[in-house]
């Protein structure tokens, strides 16, 4: 107990130079810069604004979900069903589009389905007090299964022409709608987590749910809201992805949950809850995007990129632990 009292709470955004240098985000940014420079040197096609703009499509949809997911993980919960929510929302949009509905209704359908799925997760987790990893493994299968059951092996592709804007349109010059939306959401979530009471409560619950409960924080309601937010963002991501692909298949976004969690953990969010920042997650998203893009330029197949992402995840998690061990070892011998 005494030891945990001595542990610093690593969620304050202090600005002195020294603390900035030892921060996780700085480290990530350095890695990002190194990777960026390495790719610019090795590939002549890398430093091209349009290519780089295309590269953002690789990660913005996932990164959008990673933002609320970071808050959920800080709060000691997790949602593994996000990719299945994307699929279910996409199918719902496909069917609505088939009836000849216009764009706002299609988008609204996608986001509403996302919200409902998130609320369902939150309801089961908070009402029955079951670990969310178990619940969302169940809903992951349930949501994806409903998608498969409804669709069989058909493809839905009756989307109106204007619907393509969300996934393929540009707001200004090389800045795609997706990218701008991601940046705005990142700013919103930054404010929400680091500048509001809601954000402080998220850390409080993540650091000590019991103390949070006793300090009058409505823990269950808070978690419910976070699950709903993840659901809504999964709905938004579904709109973007469906619009970009122009079609819905049952296997849409398959396996994304794990790359989203990877993104969050890479961003310095403690998987056990209690610490992490939005800037970290955003940098991690960019890092994963640039690695995927750069390796793609070098003709490396996606599955091999997964090896590199996996290695990155493990290395990046282990380094601080090893450093701490070395430090402890030294101080013990002084």
């Amino acid at each position: 107990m005494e030891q945990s009292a001595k542990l610093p709470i690593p969620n304050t955004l202090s600005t002195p130079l020294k603390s900035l240098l030892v921060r996780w985000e700085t480290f990530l940014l350095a890695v990002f810069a190194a990777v960026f420079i390495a790719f610019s040197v090795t590939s002549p096609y890398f430093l091209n604004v349009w290519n780089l703009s295309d590269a953002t499509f690789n990660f913005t949809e996932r990164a959008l979900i990673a933002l609320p997911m970071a808050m959920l993980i800080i709060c000691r919960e997790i949602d593994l069903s996000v990719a299945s929510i994307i699929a279910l929302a996409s199918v719902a949009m496909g069917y609505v589009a088939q009836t000849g509905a216009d764009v706002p209704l299609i988008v609204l359908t996608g986001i509403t389905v996302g919200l409902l799925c998130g609320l369902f997760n939150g309801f089961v987790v908070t009402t029955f007090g079951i670990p969310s990893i178990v619940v969302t493994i169940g809903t992951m299968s349930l949501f994806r299964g409903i998608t498969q059951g409804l669709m069989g092996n058909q493809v839905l592709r009756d989307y109106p022409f204007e619907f393509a804007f969300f996934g393929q349109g540009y707001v200004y010059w090389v800045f795609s709608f997706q990218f701008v939306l991601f940046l705005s959401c990142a700013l919103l979530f930054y404010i929400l987590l680091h500048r509001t009471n809601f954000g402080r409560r998220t850390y409080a619950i993540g650091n000590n749910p019991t103390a949070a409960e006793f300090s009058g924080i409505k823990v269950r309601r808070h978690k419910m809201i976070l699950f709903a937010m993840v659901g809504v963002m999964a709905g938004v991501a579904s709109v973007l992805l469906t619009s970009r692909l122009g079609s819905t298949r049952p296997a849409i976004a398959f396996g994304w949950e794990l790359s989203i969690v990877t993104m969050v953990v890479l961003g310095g969010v403690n998987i056990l809850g209690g610490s992490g920042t939005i800037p970290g997650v955003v940098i991690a998203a960019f890092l994963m995007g640039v690695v995927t893009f750069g390796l793609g330029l070098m003709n490396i197949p996606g599955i091999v990129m997964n090896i590199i992402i996996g290695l990155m995840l493990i290395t990046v998690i282990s380094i601080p632990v090893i450093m701490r061990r070395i430090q402890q070892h030294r101080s013990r011998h002084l």
Partner: protein
Amino acid sequence: MNSIVEFLKRREVLLGIVVLCMIAIIGSINPNFLQIRNLISVYNDTSILIILALGQMLVILTRCIDLSVAANLALTGMVVGLLNAAFPGFPVEGLIVLAVLMGACLGAINGAFVWLLGVPAIVVTLGTMSIYRGSIFLLSGGDWVNAHQMSPAFLAIPRQLFLGVPVLSWMSLIVIALMVYITRFRPFGRQFFAAGGNPRAAFYTGINVGFVQFRAFVISGALAGLCGYLWVSRYAVAYTEVANGFELQVVAACVIGGISIMGGVGTVAGAFLGALFLGIISNSLSIIGVSQFWQMAISGAVIIIAVIANSRSEKKPGRIILREAVAADAIDESARGDTRPATGQ
């Protein structure tokens, strides 16, 4: 203590009754399902899931999770398949031993990170899952190993009948028997429960919690390796996406079987019945005339219902906060990465 044992017993009995009811209902819709030959074939189809679920059970008992089992299975399966295609003369028994050893090594990598560095298991196995899966592609170059490249002996072993039951099923029965023996009668097996149920108390009893977790990963890996051979041999093909996403079915089987994800609670019978439950669902849908496409949704619904049912029977009203506090302590402890007690220096 006795009452807890009684209570646990009751839960597995309950699940057993549910499974029997399900068999009876399916049988009443289509009597062909109840033919002995069909029941054996359903069990045979579920054998690999059962073996993996038992390995996963040990890992979950120690408060960890192994998401890399399916990738481990696929990688060892591919290695064994490639070796067999290249050296058809090499005895298959040797290949099986090799598969088990290789799986154990892959599991040991997971375990070492958890034990020595204290990295959360979900993060490590998420990483190794991608790495193992990607390595299959590196090894095979994306090619398939097909049935005609495999030696007849390689394909024959799981199919051989012994007392009318395929060897594949016998293997799962042997694993079940071993697991029952270990988890009930050996200190080695009891340590999984101790380490997961209360790591701090386990430490004071002289148990090295990290090492127990390491051993759970090694066993889970070894079983995944064994299943790698069984899978490739049974389906007579090895390719990069073998058993993709199967890890979640394995975890689901444990969860349905009442293995608590918080650690320390669970039985071999539970994991076995959980796996059997999923196996029966996936094998019976077409028999009772439900589209195969609904299988995933049904298993999802079953998982949720099962965890709700388990949590309700476990719930002690008014003590949730206390329970969470205990869990929080443990998480603090594992976050620190060592089990040294606080000494208040």
